[in-house]
């Protein structure tokens, strides 16, 4: 009897072992199919419109001449300033939470809040930015407002990834520092931060790539404006790359939609570049250890 039971069990296990990978791979297959067809569509419609003029020309009602130069500048300005805001605040928050606040409850409370902040739809950030920063504080529909909104949008990402980086620093190292008569700040500055920095940067670059792709909050703040000037100060009006693409896609002419596809390819290349930088940093980090 025992032998038969064993045989049945084994057969069931064998069957499961064969079919489970197939079932799981269906999910992967669907995802690849979806993303693949999107990429294919964009490449087919947009590849022939890729040109230097796309990067260097101003937008125009003539699709043959239209480019996205002001949008590229707008993206560089907003993402740059927002990184300058979110990086110090996020890293400082993470250092406080992980290295200073002894209260476990405060830490988990703040972490829950950070995570729910990350779950708030980005449009809400745009609305708050427009209402409070642009109108109440009178900053206008400017680059500065867009940057601040993007900064707060990416802040949870920066904070959480910095927190993970600090947690990954073994306590042995901190104890080693204390045993030599180092103060907490000396340990953070000379031992913990240098060790955690590559991983912090990794998270920050990922946050930056999210900021680059954001269209919704910028649409609220900037409006769908036709910008014909390169912004020169943080108080100028602006547009960003995803917004320019949105503008082109909503035009009736086919040529504009092709132009949008070419722009999407550019945006994707930029994101791939940033992700590659992330992978490279991680590689350097693992080599140093």
């Amino acid at each position, binding site marked *: 009897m025992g032998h038969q039971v064993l045989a049945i069990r084994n057969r069931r296990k064998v069957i499961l072992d064969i079919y489970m990978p197939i079932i799981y791979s269906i999910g992967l297959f669907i995802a690849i199919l979806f993303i693949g067809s999107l990429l294919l569509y964009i490449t087919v419609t947009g590849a022939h419109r890729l040109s230097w003029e796309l990067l260097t020309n101003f937008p125009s009602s003539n699709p043959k001449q239209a480019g996205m130069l002001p949008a590229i500048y707008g993206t560089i300005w907003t993402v740059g300033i927002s990184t300058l805001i979110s990086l110090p605040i996020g890293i400082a928050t993470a250092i406080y939470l992980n290295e200073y606040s*002894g209260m476990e409850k405060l830490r988990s409370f703040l972490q829950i809040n950070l995570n729910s902040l990350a779950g708030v739809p980005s449009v809400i950030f745009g609305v708050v930015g427009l209402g409070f920063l642009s109108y109440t504080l009178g900053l206008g529909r400017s680059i500065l407002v867009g940057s601040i909104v993007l900064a707060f949008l990416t802040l949870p990402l920066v904070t959480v990834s910095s927190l993970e980086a600090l947690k990954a620093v*073994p306590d*042995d*190292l901190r*104890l*080693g*520092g*204390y*045993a*030599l*008569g*180092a*103060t907490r700040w*000396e340990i953070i500055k*000379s*031992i913990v931060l*240098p*060790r955690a920095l590559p991983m912090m940067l990794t998270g920050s670059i990922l946050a930056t790539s999210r900021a680059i792709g954001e269209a919704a909050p910028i649409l609220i703040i900037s409006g769908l404006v036709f910008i014909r000037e390169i912004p020169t100060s943080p108080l100028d009006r602006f547009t960003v790359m995803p917004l320019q693409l949105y503008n082109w896609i909503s035009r009736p002419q086919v040529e504009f939609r092709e132009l949008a596809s070419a722009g999407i390819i550019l945006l994707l290349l930029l994101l791939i570049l940033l992700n590659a930088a992330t992978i490279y940093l991680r590689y350097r980090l693992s080599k*140093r*250890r």
Partner: protein
Amino acid sequence: MGYGVLEQEFKVEEKVRGIRDEVHIKVKNLSVYYRKRLAISDINIEFLKNKITAIIGPSGCGKSTLLRSINRMNDLIPDATVIGKVYLDGIDIYDKSVDPVAVRAVIGMVFQRPNPFPMSIYDNVAFGVRINRLAKDREELDKKVEDALRKAALWDEVKDRLDTHAYELSGGQQQRLCIARALAINPKVLLLDEPTVSLDPVSTAKIEELLYKLKSELTIIIVTHNMLQAARVSDFTAVMMPNEKLVGTLIEYGPTKEVFTNPKDKRTEAYISGRVG
């Protein structure tokens, strides 16, 4: 390997200098709580200057807790409460006027697993010198780093590659680097918490030999699981044992030879012969 010779040397040295049993660290009525759980209770012990004292006992007997109380590392554990007194050269290190950071600069510590900092060999040793501002200029710093590495018997192996990352050293070398790092700030006492538990026998032997040489300069207290190690390196041995409530207590303390050959407490005898722990 070679201990016999060292031991003889030591005996000669003792005869020449005469035995001076000066109390360096005195622990008085020391109890440590983690939250409300009593970890060690009412420990009284005197550690003698320029001697190696081994603290042995089964897991969970509070050896490490006692060790960490001596340089106030327990302060870093949230919810740890230390009751009682620890005197270093007659000064109560738990006195309100004493800065725990300063205590740790005088009483060095080496941990179970080698924990070099993620930086070069040189910077590892220079770290303590720099933060405690013990060197006026680069020249003096270089000298202190070299001295410390020599004392830790690591200089010859690393003198040509001081700029390489400390993680490229072997485990045994890393642990000697940690000893060098501790020695670089000229501590009066060196605490070692099972320093060879993660090392191979050859590296272990090197570190034991090293401790022998170092005791002419400082007082050494070593926690170890390895009774043979305690017998090999220490002058005095303290045996700790959890009582029926699992609270760590000191059950025996005396010259190592006596503790191992003629223990006063039956539990010590049982532990040493491998029947407990």
